[in-house]
């Protein structure tokens, strides 16, 4: 096991953390488990693929179009479908996001076929030396973008009027409503932000690895593991947990071989859950 492997793993973990932020945000604010999170991520990668192919721009530049597009598409899903289901308990919205993931997968399969795609970027396979270690450039870029997203989200959550409304809605939606906060709008905006961040993560992962319409599920489970590791209510902790997972994954891969890497991650996840049945999801409100 070399230091290089672990550093690469930690940096890739930064990208995983970015992907998990949306899942954690949506669960923290609305108690909604979004089983379509992985598909929203892969959707970002596929839309970027189309833009790169037609406009011949860099995949990261395509994010300028992809991210707003996914956010705009996600808003009505929460506002007009999931909001109405949230009041009925945990299962109905869970089943609805399950349906959404089927629909998104089917649409992607229809338009892009099941063949593996990847986003071509000049720095895609590029390595850069950091302190004598050979590190994949896209992991570094991805981690930096993750850090930037965390910074922006922290400002948004702590300093803006929307952030106050969001925290109030998360703590007590009914009281917030009586104080004139448009909870339905806050929920839908939160979902849109989560989807937007996921799609950006999807583009980064699409540059680093190939993807198919069914790639979402594996990333969803990684994101869940990170959310359980990092706890709720803190985007910084989510990113940190992502980095930790990336490191753990690279250690597992070199200890047990790449083939058992996924198994180890799932086993770790189940163990974490079994030890802390309420989830490690932060403080209980």
């Amino acid at each position, binding site marked *: 096991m070399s230091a290089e492997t672990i550093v690469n793993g930690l940096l890739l973990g930064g990208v995983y953390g970015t992907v998990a932020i949306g899942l954690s945000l949506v669960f923290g604010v609305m*108690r909604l*488990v979004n089983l379509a999170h992985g598909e929203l991520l892969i959707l970002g990668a596929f839309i970027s693929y189309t833009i790169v192919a037609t406009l011949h721009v860099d995949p990261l530049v395509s994010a300028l179009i992809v991210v707003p597009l996914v956010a705009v598409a996600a808003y009505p899903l929460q506002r007009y*479908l999931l909001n*109405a*289901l*949230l*009041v*009925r*308990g*945990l*299962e*109905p919205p*869970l*089943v*609805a996001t*399950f*349906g*959404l*993931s*089927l*629909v998104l*997968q*089917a*649409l992607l*399969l*229809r338009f892009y076929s099941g063949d593996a795609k990847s986003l071509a970027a000049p720095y895609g396979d590029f390595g850069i030396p950091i302190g004598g270690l050979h590190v994949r450039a896209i992991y570094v870029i991805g981690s930096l973008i993750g850090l930037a997203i965390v910074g922006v989200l922290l400002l948004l959550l702590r300093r803006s009027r929307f952030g106050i409304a969001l925290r109030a809605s998360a703590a*007590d*939606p*009914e*009281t917030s409503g009586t104080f004139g906060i448009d909870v339905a709008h806050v929920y839908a905006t939160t979902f849109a932000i989560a989807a937007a961040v996921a799609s950006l993560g999807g583009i980064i992962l699409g540059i680093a690895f190939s993807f198919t319409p069914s790639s979402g*599920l*594996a990333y969803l*489970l990684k994101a*869940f*593991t990170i959310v359980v590791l990092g706890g709720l209510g803190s985007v910084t902790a989510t990113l940190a947990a992502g980095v930790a997972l990336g490191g753990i994954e690279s250690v597992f891969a070199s200890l047990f071989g790449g*083939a*058992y890497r*996924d*198994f180890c991650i*799932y*086993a770790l*996840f*189940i163990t974490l*859950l*079994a030890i802390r*049945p*309420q*989830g490690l999801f932060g403080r209980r*409100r």
Partner: protein
Amino acid sequence: MNAVRSHAPFLVSLVALTAIATLPLFAGAGTRDVAFTLLSYAVLAAAWNFIGGFGGQFSLGNSAFVGFGAYATAWLLTATSVPPLAAILIAAAAVIPLAGLASFALFRLHGVYLSVGSLAMALAAVSWMENWTVTGASQGINISPDRSLPDQSIYLLTLGLALLSTLGAWFLTHSDFGLCLQAVRDDEEAATSVGVAAFATKTAAFALSATVTSAMGALIALRQMSIEPTSMFGISWTIKMIVMSVVGGIGTIWGPALGALVVYFGIEKQLEAYQDVATLITGLLLILVVRFMPFGLVDVLDRARRAILRKPADRARPQLLDVAPRSAE
């Protein structure tokens, strides 16, 4: 006498449907193939409904039991000289301790944690089987033709299993055990406080679900003869079970079977050449049912029947998918 009369519609439907389901035994192999697939989905969805519907434990991990049953049977038929029928029974029984073991981790969890935890278990099973050389890793196992059963026998066994799983759902609707299970689903704290052993009840329902699922997996393996991890342990089994149960009516006796009929025969089979379109329609149907028909198609049909016969609704609606509004946390 009264009891007999109140169960008469169920018994009549069961006998009539069983009679209809024996017809493919005398039809061509193509018809029997469609009928087998339909029945197998009905069995799998019904088994998921034991734990997901009556038990309210939204498992996303039942696909692992399909794979377990299939692999256990295939391994027994290739590595030992056990007769096929015994192999099916062993596969169905051997899954019980496994489900019990999983229960210890899973039923410490509640709500969505349980769902995600069980999903992780199913995915762990897939990645383990893809690498485990004992069962041929990603190559899987081939059952030699002389070790399998004739087509008609497999179909008859599947029909028997479908009959059993329907009776199982009937049992869970009417027995004391079923009442305890539904009480745990509707309010675990209240059920525990009146003396229901919540953990044991959930574990028993989970084991029942696992047994039927594993037996079905065994029959699927006998029919396919060649099995490999991605198809046998695939999450798509769980997706089908849940979609069919929800569309038909979660926590009802006939819901999963009706869902299997609509989703498999109504959508997938008719759009065989356009699988992506079929998935799209299935996903949309799932969303529409959850949004507008929280009790599934069975309830819609039931209400239509009552409206036509001008009968009042005589029983409380099933509770799942309609829990009390979220309390302020």
